[in-house]
């Protein structure tokens, strides 16, 4: 009886405790738990009298204590991913030292994290800072360094004077504004992202924390990925406006014009010499427009005669995507009349048109106009929305960036590491007069790269042209406007002759090299030399 009274009194007392109490018998069945215990575990478990502890808390350690008869003190126990309890478990023994049960005392873990005092926190912070890959530095209000980590030491040793000044300046900005400051330092070899935060205690500025992240690798990889994508687009003949490389205002103007035109459904006319990027621009307009997921159809009047006829004779509404009609001057007068009708029809139903039409010409229409080979009305119609792509001779400032880009491509193709073009070579490239613009520039560089030794990183004048031949005036191709009546085979032969002659002269008459450059067998080259009387 007295036992009972004591028992019930102590149970009432237990409910007053902050600590949780769980009591199990020698089989592990729960005999008692207090209110604190219930509250501590209720998120995850629902305690019940007369239930086996393992059926309620499957990973409970009570059975272990019953088995080992040893006490366990201050053990961490995870209630959930974020909540922990500190549990002490004691075996309960009778006079004969027989186990009659066990008791668990539960404490909220946060109460017990007293070891996290100020000193320990500082030690912990230092540890985190030391091991961090990011560079950290803490300075006091005077600008004196209080703490810095090894990453910071490493980083500071590679930056130059100017960059170091920027780092200091960034801190000073924080002291002045008492706000976060952020800058990015970007050079050819290094990219740093610097962030500074004021340390304010009780409203007073006590110092500044500066975090420097070295993003060089990320930036480099991003750049490389972009270059690879651009190369794929080049191989796929699938361009974007970003693929144009230029500095000149003329080109910038042309690209802006193209972007504006791409937003409308107007017929676009692109003028520009061979190799100025007419196809590229037409394709970029297509990929910029809402038609980008549709077909881009290229029609060359001579090569795709059947397609041209079909296009000129069928109803416009059948087409989707973009139709790119190149070399418009190749059209006969009859075909031009048909095209004119089509353009007028297109102009009327501009908004309903299911497709976009882009037309181009490599030669000045005015010449054909004067010669009577081109319809004046068609000319007027075309000039309504026209974009002019200037030749390289009109935008010499683009030659250097273009060359650098081509070299990057050629480096990958031929396993070279050419990083720079020396001043002499730059000048030579700029003063050269190109017949087929960027195409020819690329061809020249292609030849030059073969002459560069594997270990060389700079392209020099001697690689470019052979002595005495620099700034050579290339053979002008005859204006093909007058040749429109000639069959294609004759035109091709004419062109072939010019190319062979030009290459041969460039390579100082070396026939083996000429054959190799042009992708011919030596025998075939000799045959052609004979045929065109080039001996």
């Amino acid at each position, binding site marked *: 009886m007295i036992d009972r009274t004591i028992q019930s009194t102590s149970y009432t007392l237990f409910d007053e405790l902050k600590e949780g109490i769980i009591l199990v018998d020698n089989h592990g069945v729960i005999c008692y738990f207090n209110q604190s215990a219930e509250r501590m575990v209720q998120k995850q478990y629902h305690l019940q009298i007369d239930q086996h502890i393992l059926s309620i808390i499957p990973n409970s350690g009570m059975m272990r204590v019953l088995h080992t008869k040893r006490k366990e003190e201050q053990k961490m126990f995870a209630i959930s991913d974020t909540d922990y309890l500190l549990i002490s478990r004691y075996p309960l023994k009778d006079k004969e030292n027989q186990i009659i049960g066990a008791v668990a005392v539960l404490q909220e873990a946060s109460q017990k994290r007293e070891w996290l005092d100020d000193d320990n926190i500082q030690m912990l912070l230092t540890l985190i800072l030391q091991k961090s890959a990011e560079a950290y530095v803490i300075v006091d209000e005077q600008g004196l360094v209080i703490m810095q980590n090894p990453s910071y030491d490493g980083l500071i040793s590679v930056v130059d004077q100017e960059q170091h000044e920027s780092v200091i300046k960034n801190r000073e900005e924080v002291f002045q504004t008492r706000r976060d400051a952020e800058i990015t330092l970007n050079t050819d070899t290094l990219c740093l992202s610097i962030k500074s935060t004021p340390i304010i205690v009780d409203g007073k500025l006590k110092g500044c924390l500066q975090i420097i992240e070295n993003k060089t690798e990320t930036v480099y990889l991003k750049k490389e990925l972009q270059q690879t994508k*651009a190369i794929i*687009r080049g191989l*796929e*003949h*699938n361009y974007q406006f970003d693929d144009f490389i230029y500095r000149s205002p003329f080109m910038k103007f042309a690209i802006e014009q193209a972007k504006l035109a791409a937003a409308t459904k107007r017929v676009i006319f692109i003028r520009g010499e061979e190799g100025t990027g007419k196809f590229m621009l037409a394709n970029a307009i297509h990929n910029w427009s809402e038609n980008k*997921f*549709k*077909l*881009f159809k290229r029609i060359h009047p001579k090569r795709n005669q059947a397609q041209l006829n079909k296009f000129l004779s069928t109803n416009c509404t059948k087409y989707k*995507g973009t139709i790119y009609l190149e070399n418009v001057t190749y059209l006969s007068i009859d075909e031009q009349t048909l095209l004119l009708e089509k353009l007028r029809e297109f102009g009327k139903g501009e908004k309903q048109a299911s497709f976009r039409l882009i037309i181009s010409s490599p030669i000045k229409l005015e010449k054909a106009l004067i010669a009577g080979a081109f319809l004046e009305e068609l000319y007027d119609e075309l000039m309504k929305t026209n974009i002019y792509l200037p030749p390289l001779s009109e935008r010499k400032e683009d030659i250097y960036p273009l060359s650098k880009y081509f070299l990057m491509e050629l480096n990958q193709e031929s396993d070279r590491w050419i990083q720079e073009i020396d001043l002499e070579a730059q000048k030579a490239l700029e003063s050269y007069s190109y017949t087929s613009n960027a195409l020819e520039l690329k061809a020249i560089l292609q030849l030059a790269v073969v002459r560069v030794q594997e270990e060389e990183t700079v392209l020099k004048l001697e690689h470019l042209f052979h002595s005495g031949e620099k700034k050579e005036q290339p053979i002008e191709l005859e204006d093909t406007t007058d040749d429109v009546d000639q069959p294609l085979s004759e035109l091709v032969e004419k062109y072939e002759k010019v190319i062979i002659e030009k290459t041969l002269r460039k390579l100082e008459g070396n026939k083996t090299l000429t054959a190799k450059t042009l992708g011919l067998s030596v025998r075939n080259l000799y045959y052609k030399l004979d045929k065109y009387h080039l001996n």
Partner: protein
Amino acid sequence: MSRYRILVINPRSLVTEIALYENQVPIIIEDLHHDSEKIREFSSIVSQYKFRTNEILLYLVDKGINLSKLAAVCGRGGLLKPIDGGTYIINAAMRNDLLGQTRGEHPSNLGALIAYEIAEHLEIPSYIVDPVVVDEMDNIAKISGYPKITRKSVFHALNHKATGRRAAMELGKKYEKVKLIIAHLGDGITIGAHSNGKVIDVNNGLNGEGPFSMERSGTLPHGDLVDLCYSGEFTYKEMKQQLLYHSGVMAYLDKPRSLQIEEELQNPDNPNYLIFEALAYQVAKEIGSASTVLFGKVDAIILTGELAFSNLFVKLIMERVSWIADIMVYPGENERQSLAEGVLRVLRKEEIPKEYGDREECEDNGKGV
């Protein structure tokens, strides 16, 4: 030889598997993972097709691929009405059946819809190849023995057909001229008798015919099954789930899916050995039964699918069936390659694409037994 670029699309519940082939050579193989939240926003599976189309196109454009260079687009065939095997041009009748979900809802229904959507704008043809509903079963095979139940042809048609063609080529014959027994040993197991290019009989692995598999039960004694169904232990849905996902090897071993069959078969004293041996035994038995469909005139027995990667498992089957015919093993299953090859045959004019017709036509073929 012409080079054809083929875009292949195999939609799954949260992923769209795509591949870009140049003839048989894959240039891009990618699984586009979709945001599950976004997918859940759609009221039905088919309504996702514009969203998934856009995701595919954006991906390809980002990679720099010139869409105008594509020659054809191929989608995984969905739940259509029963049709002959082969490559089908995607037409309005097919799209209507898929949009209307007349034969059921499944992510593969999106394949044809997406393929058509992309191809139409590029003015190129779009196809499906050997969908799961391929039905070339002989009328005699459709008789179940109980008039209210007709046997149906539901099997891994794409892999069966692609592997059949591959094997026929190695045998130096045309697929249309050989008699083969093909066992697809994957998540489900289907064993088909291929006679002159047609699958004249095959077990319906999804519906409890044939051998058991890793997770599914095979044929069960129907008396006991009926008793179990009415025992009150399971609801209709639970019973179906039991048979499809909680039977087979896994149910006996009570182990997770990642079980390595090759490891389990290393030691005959392993307590699990008997179960795997039984699996091989039942597969062999089904192959034996298929050999009678072909009157014993079998050019080759072909084992394919994931389980065929296990040499020991293959050996167990071989011991029992090698007297029937030579055995050829093509482990794994490459759905995207099979789809591309199906389209390539059509583009190269080696095969004439079929038209998905209206229902009457199909039933005239005697498919409605």
